[in-house]
């Protein structure tokens, strides 16, 4: 814990120095980059050590403390955070003349520290304080580019939603601590164990509060705008790390509360299924690279919730094996998504710098401009689609197993196995979406002239390569990570887990590893055979076959919109597109059905009501005094009634 504190201190210092040394930009960047990386690495090491050595969590009375669940998330926050901070100095470097880059660097440090605070808090006050610092720091970073109206609007939507989440959490903790009589998490557990708390209310409010933060449909509406508006490394942090705090909250709530009722598990499972399918479907319709990646976060949060839902159902039905699979899958996918999604956002940032636009349909053949980013993005794409031999497959495999294993239990729980088909649909749609993104962006030939030439320097590429390395390592050697995830999962579960269950899971993970190795060896062999065959033959360069039409241009290539059209068409009104047929034109706009049908009307109603309330603000002192006196009299009457 003290090591973690030292790391966080170093990060805060680096952030302050970046702000103070603003005028000496080279020095400030260097101090900030290495101070942040050192701080993150030191902090992450302390978390990793705790996970490796399996120290039992003691009952601590301090406001902040570290146990296995906290350590897992600290590892994610600081591991990804180091890469993002390192990338940030290079990414914001160009903005120096026009903006206060030092403030953004300081805010990033504060946000990371607040995130660590949230996952290590041990009392309600500590938790909510860190939560609010996190929410505000993230808001200030989202509106970094606040000259543009769309950024301000995205910031507003985020601010409203994040406070909705905070209010729900206030309600949850109020309901809980009313029964507990104290604010420390240890006392909350005790109160829950003695059935002194309204469990249904707590679980419902917790799901709302943490669900909005995690971006679960329909609470996801802040997510696409905020991710598109923020600078790319901040989008990576929001998507890769901050959403996961919502998952942490759900897991922490479960671990404190004990056995949840079955309806809660089913609710989480269904929310997960809906988020996964709709998230990827809406992603498919996007033209803006960063909005597209943001919707994929909704999808992946859905996959995590599928695991979490099965875990909760396993706990309620007393199937420890099922619960272990579900929670382990959720935790693993949380880690994996944080790796590949931040990788993809960092790649998107480098690409946007290189190309000067986020519009997928204006780009093409960018792999020739930023080859290393293209390969890193390629790795990230395979990982996010959940294909072997990378890390995304490993966690989806565990979640699939959890879903299908419900089929072996008997009773109503078996129905949950049907959701495996939903996860399969999600995977296939993700494949469609990322073949579109990677194919249209990086491959083929340019669709319009490329404007920028920046984005290929080492400061931007190195973090991507590090993250890609982690994706490959976890994909090839899953048995190194699964024991730790399983240990964290066991810590969340109230029932004791039979010995050997986690070891069995690790054992089968070696088979996944074997399959990945066989695949790589076979790729090598086929490559060698083909190379041997081609070596003695003629290899010619030609033009792409265009049905004998000679004047092919880059604009004639299949665009991202036409690529997705047939799939989107098949899903009809669910797909989140708005078709405008003109006499000579066809426009397809990506819209968010939830935002348009719920978010906007509710907001309009709120504003109208608020304007109506202005009548009471007459600016006459007489009326204000009357309000005060009325309130006083009302309170007196109330006290007179309730007084014994």
């Amino acid at each position, binding site marked *: 814990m003290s090591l973690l504190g030292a790391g966080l201190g170093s990060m805060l210092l680096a952030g302050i120095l970046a702000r103070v040394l603003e005028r000496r930009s080279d020095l400030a960047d260097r101090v900030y980059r290495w101070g942040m990386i050192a701080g993150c690495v030191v902090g992450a090491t302390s978390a990793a050590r705790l996970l490796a050595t399996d120290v039992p969590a003691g009952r601590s009375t301090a406001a902040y403390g570290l146990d296995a669940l906290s350590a897992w998330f600290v590892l994610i926050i600081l591991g990804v955070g180091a890469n993002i901070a390192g990338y940030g100095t290079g990414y914001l470097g160009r903005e120096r003349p026009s903006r206060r880059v030092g403030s953004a660097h300081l805010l990033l440090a504060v946000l990371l520290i607040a995130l660590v605070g949230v996952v290590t808090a041990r009392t309600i006050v500590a938790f909510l304080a860190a939560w609010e610092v996190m929410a505000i720091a993230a808001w200030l970073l989202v509106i970094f580019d606040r000259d543009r109206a769309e950024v301000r609007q995205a910031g507003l939507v985020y601010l409203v939603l994040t406070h909705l989440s905070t209010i729900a959490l206030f309600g949850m903790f109020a309901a809980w601590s009313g029964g507990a009589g104290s604010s420390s998490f240890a006392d909350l557990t005790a109160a829950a164990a003695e059935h002194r708390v309204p469990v249904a209310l707590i679980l419902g409010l917790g799901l709302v509060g943490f669900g909005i933060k995690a971006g679960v449909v329909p609470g996801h509406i802040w997510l696409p705008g905020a991710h598109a508006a923020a600078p790319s490394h901040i989008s990576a942090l929001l998507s890769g790390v901050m959403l996961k705090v919502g998952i942490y909250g759900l897991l922490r709530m479960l671990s404190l509360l004990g056995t949840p009722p079955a309806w809660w598990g089913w609710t989480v499972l269904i929310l997960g299924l809906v988020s996964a399918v709709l998230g990827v479907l809406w992603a498919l319709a996007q033209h803006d690279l960063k909005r597209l990646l943001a919707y994929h976060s909704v999808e992946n949060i859905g996959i995590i919730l599928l695991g979490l839902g099965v875990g909760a159902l396993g706990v309620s039905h007393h199937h420890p094996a099922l619960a272990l699979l579900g929670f382990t899958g959720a935790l693993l996918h949380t880690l994996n998504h944080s790796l590949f999604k931040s990788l993809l956002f960092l790649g998107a940032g480098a690409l946007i710098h290189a190309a000067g636009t986020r519009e997928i349909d204006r780009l093409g*053949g960018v*792999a*020739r401009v930023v080859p290393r980013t293209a390969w890193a993005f390629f790795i990230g794409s*395979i990982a996010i*689609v959940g*294909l*072997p031999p990378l890390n995304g497959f490993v966690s*989806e*495999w*565990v979640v699939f197993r959890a879903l*299908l294993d419900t*089929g*072996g239990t008997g009773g109503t729980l*078996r*129905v949950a*196995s*049907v959701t495996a*088909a939903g996860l*399969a649909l999600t995977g*296939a*749609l993700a*494949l*469609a979406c*990322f*073949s*579109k993104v990677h*194919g249209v962006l990086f*491959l083929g*030939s340019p669709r319009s002239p490329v404007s920028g030439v920046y984005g290929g320097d080492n400061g931007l590429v190195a973090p991507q390569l590090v993250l890609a390395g982690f994706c490959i390592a976890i994909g090839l050697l899953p048995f190194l990570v699964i024991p730790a995830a399983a240990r964290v999962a066991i810590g969340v579960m109230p029932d004791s887990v039979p010995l050997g269950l986690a070891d069995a899971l690790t054992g089968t993970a070696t*088979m*996944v590893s*074997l*399959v990945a190795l066989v*695949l790589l060896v*076979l*790729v090598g*062999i*086929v490559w060698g055979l*083909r190379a041997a*065959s*081609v070596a003695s*033959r*003629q290899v*010619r*360069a*030609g*033009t*792409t*076959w*265009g*049905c004998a039409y000679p004047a*092919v241009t880059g604009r004639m290539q*299949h665009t991202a919109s*036409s*690529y*997705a059209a*047939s*799939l989107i*068409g*098949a899903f009809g009104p669910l797909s989140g597109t708005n078709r405008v047929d003109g006499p000579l034109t066809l426009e397809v706009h990506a819209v968010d059905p939830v935002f348009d049908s719920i978010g906007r009307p509710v907001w309009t109603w709120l504003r109208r009501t608020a304007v109506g309330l202005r009548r009471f603000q007459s600016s006459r002192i007489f009326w204000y005094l009357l309000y005060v006196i009325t309130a006083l009299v009302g309170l007196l009457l109330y006290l007179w009634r309730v007084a014994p």
Partner: protein
Amino acid sequence: MTNSIPVFPLLALVIVLGLAPMLPGIANRTKSLLTGRRGAPVLQLYWDLAKLWRKGVVYSRTTTLVFRLGPIVLLAATLVASTLLPLDGATALLGFPGDLVAFAGLLGLGRFLLVLAAMDTGSSFEGMGASREVTIAAFAEPALFLCFTVLVLATGQMELAGMFGVPLVTAWPLAAPSLVLAAIGLFIVTLAETCRVPVDDPLTHLELTMIHEVMVLDHSGPDLALILYAGAVKMALFGCLVIGVVAPRAHQPRALAVAELVLGLALIAVAVGVVESVMARLRMNRVPQLLVAASALAGFALILLLR
């Protein structure tokens, strides 16, 4: 897994990989006979592969390394997928709980790389083919997993070798209607995944109407050979799934089981040819409906099991 060398799984794998190129030949021959032609020899694909393997290659100047990687990864992934199936009826070379996810994932990896290779050419035809391929796959995947879920529920097994093994033999008398529905669903998925009528027509000659063929327009020489061979192996693998449900062979002597598999694959190829002779290809926007129908069949099968 036992420590001794798994003779029959290996033997079955070698036979399946060796005979796979014959399946498209049988299907095409059936079609030509039924439509009153003589048609190409059954062994035509072997000759094509041998010839392509000895040819030179032309690469478009637009392409990158991804284009060269596509066919290689496609074949390698398909081969690894074939080691997960219990081809001799009882044992898989690389079986483990949840290996059905790896089976679908490996085929997905091959598809992903092939689609990217098509996009790499910058041709709008190939982009169109890629788009159609992923659209069809998006509907075939849930149907495949629903069929797998039927098997999981009927047998209580999480491993392909178990799902198609002895537990399936004992499950048949209890869950026959479900298993029949799942087999039909799997056959429809087979038609879609192997690009046959009514989903795709391998013999079409117009770029605009092709799906799979148009994706590989720019591949030549050994690269095309790899793709064609991988396609044949994929057809064999899906054939093995259908046979595995219809005729589980775990209780039989291994040699007989392998012989039955070969016979079954030939019958599947004949069935594919018959389907191609009696019906036309569906309009592109009807294909998802066909696959949703396959999912619905599997869904009914699940309801029967869950009742």
